[in-house]
């Protein structure tokens, strides 16, 4: 018997227009010198990361949109089991910011209604090319009641905080529902990654 190595499991999604740096948010210590050609060719499906919050060991399973960046291709099956969503735009790309509202609508239509959301304005290290001010990010976040952070995957600014804040929000909600004894695990649907095998018959 494998001993229990964690308390909770949270499934998180990264969504947003292509090119906003979702992949590099997962790719924190990005360094060209070490980029593996084989892995970068085939691409990453998901990652497992471990964080400790309030004495609980939490496994985060983090999914990228894997190229399905258009609103109409991201539907219910993609959101199934998601407990948290990072909504990412690029502060140097006006259009990716305008599309945040469309993404929020897409989440409302397809995701679980109590999913925790967070808006990230990525690439905040590139000051010269900035097209979206921090104030505008703050304003849209306030309007929709969603927490907001500006991040830089490249400079490693606020990336850990973003994941910790989102996980904390889920933990708080979870604790609110289950006062006292929390169940060992929150099971998420782990099947998305191997649909090819399961669709055989």
């Amino acid at each position: 018997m494998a001993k229990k190595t964690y308390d909770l499991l949270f499934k998180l999604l990264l969504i947003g227009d292509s090119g906003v740096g979702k992949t590099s948010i997962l790719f924190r210590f990005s360094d060209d010198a070490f980029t593996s050609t084989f892995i970068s060719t085939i691409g990453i499906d998901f990652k497992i990361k471990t964080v400790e919050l309030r004495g609980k060991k939490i496994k985060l399973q983090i999914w990228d949109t894997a190229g399905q960046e258009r609103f109409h291709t991201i539907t219910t099956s993609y959101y199934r089991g998601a407990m948290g969503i990072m909504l990412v735009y690029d502060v140097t790309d006006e259009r990716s910011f305008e599309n945040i509202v469309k993404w929020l609508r897409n989440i409302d239509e397809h995701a679980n209604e109590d999913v925790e959301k967070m808006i990230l304005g990525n690439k905040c290290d590139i000051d010269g090319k900035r097209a979206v001010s921090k104030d505008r990010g703050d304003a849209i976040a306030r309007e929709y009641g969603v927490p907001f952070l500006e991040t830089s995957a490249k400079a490693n600014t606020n990336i850990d905080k973003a994941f910790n804040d989102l996980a904390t929000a889920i933990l708080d909600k979870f604790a609110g529902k289950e006062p006292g004894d929390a169940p060992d695990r929150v099971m998420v649907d782990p099947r998305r990654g191997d649909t090819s095998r399961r669709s055989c018959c």
Partner: protein
Amino acid sequence: MTAPAGISPEIEAVLENGLNKTALTCLHCPSRILNPSVGTFVQQEFALPAMTKQKNQIIDEKHELREFWKVKDMFQFENVGFSNTVDGVKYLTCADCEMGPIGWHDLVTKENFIAVSRVRNS
């Protein structure tokens, strides 16, 4: 060089009751992949694509490896990345710097195998 069925002194040094004695970390960054005593040492052949290749090299070289840490449940990992599926296999990478493949995931049995030679014992 290595005896087919034997366990080399290098492996012996990192084993405790057949499990990894120390934590496993990435060779290229400080990311912790596995806690101590979670992976079971197994010997089986698997050809894992090389982690790096020459600039002008087109075909991915594969290395025949036979010493792995077996991890039964993917959520026993501390930090790890799973690649998209290629020929029925998902390759494992460092979750932070994405160096890899450091091992592979069997889609049928759900078991995971980390190549002993592609991680650091620390």
